[in-house]
């Protein structure tokens, strides 16, 4: 029964990883951009929530009302102002520019918030739990996180497949030149994609901050989890990304159960095994 518990906790942890990964998967899908600063932007959202929560005495989950629009705007400006300049045939500029941004963000956060470990204090909800079967209980927050991940991905599926903007995302991803002939301004569409990506990142950052301690140095680790979930799930598939997050969460949870020092290592090793066995991930997109 303990193992069942371990797996269930891992699945719920996977919800958080899926939230980390969704934004990364989305921008790769739309513009083939791999944002190395993605993890650091998650931490930016956590600190933004901290600042808002402490500044206005708000509950951390209420700060979402401010942090999500803030990150949405940041994403638009970041893409329009900097990252659009890096897109092209050469993979080096986007990679190195986002890598540079990652270092800039980490050190900027250090400068403003110091290296101290922080946490978003959510009060009673942090310790609330639900009894399910066989004496296993699950935390309310992890459940909320998992449900949020499912809702976000369902929402993005609707956005992608039921709206004109979604068609524009997919058309631009297929063939940016022809998309322009349709009157689609690629720079604007890419900026909107990054804005949506960072809106999801905002949610991920707040839920991360409520769940665990964070400090300016943890961004790269979150990037790696996000990246692993995306690759495990298969590039460009949002539901695959959720599956990838869950597999990573379960692997980490099992690793931690064996030895707390093995948690992260177990996740990485699960990723590498899947990479060797199924290089294109579990649910690769049909059209590539």
């Amino acid at each position: 029964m303990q193992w069942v518990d371990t797996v269930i906790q891992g699945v719920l942890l996977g919800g958080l990883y899926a939230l980390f990964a969704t934004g990364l998967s989305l921008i790769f899908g739309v513009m083939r951009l791999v944002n190395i600063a993605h993890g650091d932007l998650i931490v930016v959202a956590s600190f933004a929530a901290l600042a808002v929560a402490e500044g206005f005495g708000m509950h951390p989950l209420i700060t979402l009302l401010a942090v999500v629009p803030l990150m949405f705007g940041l994403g638009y400006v970041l893409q329009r102002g900097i990252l659009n300049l890096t897109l092209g045939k050469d993979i080096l500029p986007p990679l190195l520019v986002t890598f540079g941004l990652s270092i800039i963000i980490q050190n900027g956060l250090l400068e403003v918030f110091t290296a101290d470990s922080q946490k978003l204090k959510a009060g009673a909800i942090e310790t609330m739990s639900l009894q399910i079967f066989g004496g296993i209980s699950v935390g309310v927050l992890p459940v909320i996180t998992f449900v949020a991940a499912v809702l976000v991905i369902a929402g993005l599926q609707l956005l992608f497949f039921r709206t004109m903007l979604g068609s524009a995302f997919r058309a631009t991803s297929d063939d940016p030149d022809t998309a322009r002939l349709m009157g689609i301004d690629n720079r604007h569409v890419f900026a909107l994609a990054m804005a949506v990506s960072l809106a999801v990142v905002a949610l991920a950052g707040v839920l991360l901050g409520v769940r665990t301690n964070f400090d300016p140095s943890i961004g790269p680790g979150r990037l790696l989890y996000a990246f692993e979930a995306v690759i495990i799930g298969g590039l460009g598939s949002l539901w695959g990304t959720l599956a990838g997050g869950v597999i990573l969460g379960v692997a980490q949870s099992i690793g931690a159960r064996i030895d707390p020092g093995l948690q992260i290592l177990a996740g990485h090793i699960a990723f590498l095994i899947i990479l060797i066995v199924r290089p294109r991930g579990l649910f690769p997109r049909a059209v590539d």
Partner: protein
Amino acid sequence: MKYRVTTATRTSRVAGLVTLAVLVFVALAPQWGTRADLRLIVEFCYFLALAQMWNLLAGYAGLVSVGQQAFVGLGGYGLFVFTIYLGVSPLMAMLLSGIAAAIFALPTAFVVFRLRGAYFAIGTWVVAEVYRLSFAQVSALGGGSGKSLPISVIRSIADSRAEREVLIFYVGLAVAVFATGIVYWILRSRHGLALTAIRDSEPASESLGVNNFNAKLVIYVIAAAVTGFVGALIFIQKLRISPDAAFALTDWTAYVIFIVVIGGIGRIEGPIIGTIVFFVLQEFLAELGTWYLMILGIMAVVIMLKAPQGLWGLVADRFGIQFFPVQRRLHVEATRDKEA
């Protein structure tokens, strides 16, 4: 029509002489320099060697790795394993550490070569993390808190502290020269042409029969070997190792990437210029702490956006100079044969 293919230029011959003079001057540093000078030069040398290797991977073979700290760490730990547990002499242990890093590069490549482009980059990073977390589990090597090199091993490098420092100095100088030399040699060989073809167009070079996978693998393994040797050098100077120091992304990859980008990616001179800029900036800005890293990052971002050929590229393109000519020049001596 007669054709002649050359790579040397007049500037390159002058540059050769200048380089030689600088090298001789630096090699005499134990005569004119303080201990701090020697230490600084060794640091300069290992950053230069790391930068040359990263540039070889990213600038020429299209392998943008963010995980080269894996090989620095493996080399560093190799030094400790070979000297402490296998009783190998320190110098021999450094060589063996380089070889060990190259051997580890093979299974690493088996995994990360499945990923393309940016995903390759993050994949190499994951593997480096796996190595870091794995070494943290090895209690014989001090686990997460690390291990110091025992006095007996330190003594076996050389008897006096001064002798040790001079020896390490020459090893450092040698590896910097070797790293630059091997990149030059690879680029001037047929292999180099194949690499440039891969970088410029992967599908096109495949259609020309260039075996990308093998060419890339060879480069990856060479870079791992040299990087591993440098790792051993770094930790014979530091005398203490821990997983976080050995597999540090910031120190062994971020700095190195900034050096190459600022100096000029895809050019042999780039890492040299970049390392000089890096040390000059460090001299003036190091006390700014986090601001120093932010300034480096901003410089790299701005250069990547506005002058992707780097500082050396700006100079070289304006004046048409190359210190280490690797481009082949085709001289056509028209002999006014019949019309085509």
